[in-house]
């Protein structure tokens, strides 16, 4: 199969997945017991309020018409308006996206060199003291959930030692102006992905370093450093790239726990508030955006992995 046709097929599949996400989000809202208006009315079902909500949500119109309108709006970047504030949903997203992107970007910028570096380091002396240290520490850290690690770090570094601010309260969305507030959240976000990534890279590197092609490069005196980073790593990187896409996806879709813990006004916080207020259009909008981000990132990872394993798809 030619690379061009692979990319085209994968892009088509991505488009289909995106459409499926939109449909699914709509269907899930439809599937709410009673209808969205009843669900929104909450614990005090006041018939007048429900009627008002129905009208606001245009629930009296047939489902396919509403879906068509909503989908048409999506295509123009119109995600509807919030029920609680009347502001367009896109404003919510725009406000929350900045902090989330900043956190995700910083985390990824540190994650890639750390994850790959530790993995390669451990694999180079597989079974040695350094390998065992890295492996056991990474397993231990991986076992600690984000909220627990976050609480621990805040207690030690913010409350006891007072080196860093405990939360981002008061800084608004201008987090870049207050880098100290970012240290702890990024650390918490980094902890588990570094462990999983480095373990994946290590496993792949151990295989790659034992492969006949590596022995062949050594046979002719190619420098070890070159072998390590240029010959062994590409083969080991394919699964790591997929994992990296999953991590990026997790980060960009607003890490609710961390944002809540450090009071960062990112997408996770927007989502949390929208759910608490039963603001269905905002939740729908977020769901669509998260879905699309997931599709796009995995598409990118598949293309990179395809490049790293050029033989894949050559068989019947």
């Amino acid at each position: 199969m030619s690379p061009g046709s692979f990319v085209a097929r994968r892009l088509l599949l991505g488009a289909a997945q995106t459409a499926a996400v939109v449909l699914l989000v709509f269907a899930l809202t439809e599937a709410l017991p009673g209808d969205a208006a009843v669900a929104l009315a909450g614990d005090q079902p006041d018939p007048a309020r429900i009627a008002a909500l129905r009208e606001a949500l245009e629930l009296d119109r047939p489902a396919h018409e509403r879906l068509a309108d909503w989908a048409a709006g999506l295509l123009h970047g119109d995600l509807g308006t919030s029920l609680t504030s009347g502001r367009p949903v896109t404003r919510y997203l725009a406000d929350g996206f900045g902090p989330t992107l900043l956190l995700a970007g910083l985390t990824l910028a540190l994650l890639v060199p750390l994850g790959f570096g530790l993995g390669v380091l451990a694999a180079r002396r597989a079974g040695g003291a350094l390998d065992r240290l890295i492996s056991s520490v990474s397993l231990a850290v991986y076992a600690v959930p984000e909220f627990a690690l976050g609480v621990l770090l805040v207690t030690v570094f913010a409350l006891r030692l007072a080196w860093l601010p405990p939360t981002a309260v008061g800084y608004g969305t201008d987090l870049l102006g207050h880098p100290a507030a970012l240290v702890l959240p990024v650390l918490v976000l980094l902890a588990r992905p570094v462990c999983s990534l480095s373990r994946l890279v290590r496993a792949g590197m151990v295989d790659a370093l034992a492969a006949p092609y590596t022995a062949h490069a050594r046979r002719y005196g190619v420098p070890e450093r070159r072998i390590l980073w240029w010959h062994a790593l590409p083969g080991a990187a394919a699964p790591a790239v997929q994992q990296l896409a999953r991590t990026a996806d997790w980060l960009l879709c607003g890490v609710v726990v961390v944002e809540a813990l450090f009071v960062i006004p990112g997408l996770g916080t927007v989502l949390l508030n929208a759910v608490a207020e039963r603001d269905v259009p905002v939740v729908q909008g977020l769901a669509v955006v998260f879905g699309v981000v997931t599709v796009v990132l995995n598409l990118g990872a598949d293309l990179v992995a395809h490049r790293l394993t050029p033989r894949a798809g050559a068989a019947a």
Partner: protein
Amino acid sequence: MSEDSVAEIRDLRVEVGGRALVDGVSLRVPPGKVVALVGASGSGKTTTGLALLGEYPAGARVSGEVRRAPGAVGYVPQHPGAVLHPALRVGVLLRDIARAHGRDRDDLRQALADARLPEGEALLRRYPHQLSGGQQQRIVLAQALLPRPRVVVADEPTTGQDPETKRQIAERFAAVAARGIAVVLLSHDLDVVRALADEVLVMRAGRVVESGPAERLWRAPRHEWTRRLLDAEGVPPADGVGRGVGGVLPVGGGGVGRGVGGVLPVGGGGVGCGVGGVLPVDGGGVGCGAEGVPPVEGGGMGCGVDGIPPADGDGIGRPVLEVRDLTAVHGRTPVLRVPRLVLRAGECLAVVGRSGSGKTTLGRCLAGLHRHHDGTVLLDGVPLPRSLRHRDRERLAAVQYVFQDARAAFDEHRPVLDQVARTAVRLRGADAHAARAEALDTLARLGLTGDLPHRRPGALSGGELQRAALARALLARPRVLVCDEITSGLDTVTRRALLDLLAGLPADRPGLSLVLITHDPQTARLAQRTVVVEAGHVTERAPGPLTVCCEVGHKGSRVKSLEGSEAVVRRLGRHRRTRRCP
């Protein structure tokens, strides 16, 4: 180390887990000479060869002495594809090697040219899987030559290659030796050994049983095992004339020449050609015998002159499989065109051609493994779905495929018997118990008895596994059995045994049609009909022995055209006198 050797091994013993892989092996490699280690698979050739590179199996206990002249030792492994990084363009390692040894662009170009890859620089941008096996091997040879080694170790360089390619490989290594680089050739392919070697060491079970100059060894083998090895290569004619005259030079029209087939199949061909392309009624028999297979008595296959249908073939039975207007593509490139091809019940069809000619693609189209074609494949007059994914059980069972690499075709974690029996359960709905009994029976008929079927694939030899693969396909009770190069990659003794089994199949399974994809003339001779695939075009050949004749004629002219190279002439000299084809 003595003056006139670039590498030397003295009394080498390599032991893994208490079992000696090689024991008491000594050898001396003079500069510019070809030293061949011959023997069946598992005789310790590779272990000895790798010792020259200073490499030993993991956990090996080594004693003895290995010395080599300063400088790198080149290595061309049996499967060049395995040492090429699947995700890197082949140029990357070549440039790295050049850098590590202080070689520049010109040296790189020179190494490519020496490896017979003049167009090499364009290939450097390709990935290994985009190269043919031959190109991969030449890239690996270029890697070996780049550091200007004193010795190159070549492990089974001709295994699984067609005769023409074998000849080119032999010529390539002859050229390497001519430049003063010693070649250590590890091979069970006696043709290439004969064409190249100055010194031969015959190995068996980790020991050198006989060694000496190549000429002497062939003329008068001293050890019983050497004799058996040489015999297996070409079964001598019944009257035994070949043995009497020495075999290397077939004398006169008798066309005896034990072991003449292979790299330079010359002997009997001369005779056949003398007949001048007429359907060889008598002469054909001679040609066939001269190539080393006793005619006709091939076990009911009707090999040879008897029972050959006319070229349009309306004899043996009704058509089982028919191919119409097939054009197969890889990507957008057409790789195979078959206007019409009919396979009849009980018939054995050989598909011959050089590597890369498209013969495997033809087999894969039949079996539904290659769906990118626009033709029709009819089974009993009903079109078969192109992809095996869309074939139902019955039609899956009807066309079975046996692959070249039997080891890769088995799950290494389950006993062979279970995997063989599974076919009957999956494709015929047999119950597990009956399937097991039938599998045991079929395996026993193919010579796998005792606890062999109960072992895992790792504990079986290549030949045994290939029989198991055959048994697995037979358990589907197929109408058509496609065998893709199932004898290449096996040593001569094992190959012979497998050929006998194949020859006996039709008697055992009446109505079964065989498609033998092969470039081995011995294997092709089992068939009543032969089609030749050349650069994607399929043509039917006049049957049997004439095929041999034409091939030799063709080969002969090719060899002549290559005589420009001094080294080749010197190396191939001993065969030239026998080339009489017009």
